[in-house]
């Protein structure tokens, strides 16, 4: 079922962040939401996840959808290993499957099962957060500026992995970088 966003508005402390925004997110496709910083992209995702309620308007088509998400911040268990972080949201996977995913993400040189992610670089933490979202048993994948902080070579590798692993899922990619929408083969682009 498509997700139908109908005239939602949201303000914080009197400042209007979303003003009567409407859109249709087609099921099983990749939709990119392009906007500069502060335009309400993250607010839109927070409404879709149920973390925020819109002041007015409605969202339909989320029933029965399992959400997985890459947040703007990594939100990892810093004292746990990369594999443990993935198993937190994807207990159906084996440790070997987690390692395989992490290797695809280019985190092969670290001890994926023992080393706490606290010791990882910013880019590596980011990749673990992306891997966690890809591994989760969800059919709606929300990506909030997921590739921020990755170098071009790593970014390309990670985007390829994202494309492979998110096939058939409804994907909403929030970004301000137009090149990412092309690389992620977005079926629709919404400008906020």
């Amino acid at each position, binding site marked *: 079922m498509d997700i139908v966003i109908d005239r939602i508005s949201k303000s914080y402390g009197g400042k209007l962040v979303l003003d009567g925004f409407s859109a249709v997110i087609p099921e099983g496709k990749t939709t990119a939401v392009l906007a500069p910083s502060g335009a309400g992209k993250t607010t839109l995702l927070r409404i879709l996840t*149920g*973390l925020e309620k819109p002041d007015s308007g409605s969202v339909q088509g989320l029933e029965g959808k399992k959400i997985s*998400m890459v947040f703007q911040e990594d939100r990892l268990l810093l004292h746990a290993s990369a594999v443990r972080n993935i198993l*937190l949201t994807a207990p159906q996977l084996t440790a070997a499957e987690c390692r395989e995913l992490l290797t695809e993400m280019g985190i092969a040189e670290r001890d994926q099962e023992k080393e706490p992610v606290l010791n990882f670089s910013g880019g590596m933490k980011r990749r673990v957060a992306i891997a966690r979202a890809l591994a*989760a048993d969800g059919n709606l994948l929300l990506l909030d500026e997921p590739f921020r902080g990755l170098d071009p070579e790593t970014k390309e590798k990670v985007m390829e992995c994202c494309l492979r692993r998110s096939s058939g899922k409804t994907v909403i990619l929030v970004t301000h970088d137009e090149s990412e929408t092309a690389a992620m083969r977005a079926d629709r682009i919404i400008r906020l």
Partner: protein
Amino acid sequence: MNKEGASKNRTRLWAVLFWLAVWQASGFFIEDRVFFVTPVQVAVHLARLLPTADFWQTVGRSYLRITGGFLLAVLIGTVLACLSAAFIRVRELLSPLMLAIRSIPVVSFVILAIILVSPRKLATLISFTMGLPILYTNTLDGIDEIDRSMKEMADVFRIPAMRRFRFIYLPEVLPYFRAGVRVAAGLCWKAGAAAEVIGVPAFSIGLHLYQAKIYIETADLFAWTLVIVLLSFGTEKLSLFLVDRVARAVQK
């Protein structure tokens, strides 16, 4: 505290031996053999106590009374902290009570409690009363410090309650809880022993301390004090060991 800081704060054996040597050396200059005893005299006196059944019965009963209060404080303090974190009215209700317990001097509690409970139960009650606000406050502080963004992440991914507890909540709360256990273990022993001295129940360390004061048995006083210090230290180390083991097992 990081490992380096913890290592710097650790009590070194050489430092303990240095101060014992200073104490022993003082014996050469102080001639008063009634009030002043050396560490060697204390050790000899303690060695005489060790083989007696009365010593072990006394230690056992005091240990049960005081650690019983401490364990109750751990259990009830943790449960109340969880309830306070979940329900604001419980937090509001308990706030003045915990503040009062923290502020009232131990001796006032002991004197009030001795009117209400038997001397046998006094040490347990006082130990519990002193430990409760520490465990309550520390655990509640830990719960309050749980990262809101991690709670949101768990909500979005619909992580079940048990897994959230094991991997998100427990690691955040544990350092606070652990610090509470550490402080409370020592305080419960201090307050519990003081309660025994006032309540003087049969087969208690407090009774021996009281008698040592009456008969001016300084060696006895120091020997039993040393026993309290060792029991307090042992309780703290055992409790922390168990907390760490349980935490490791839960998070495995």
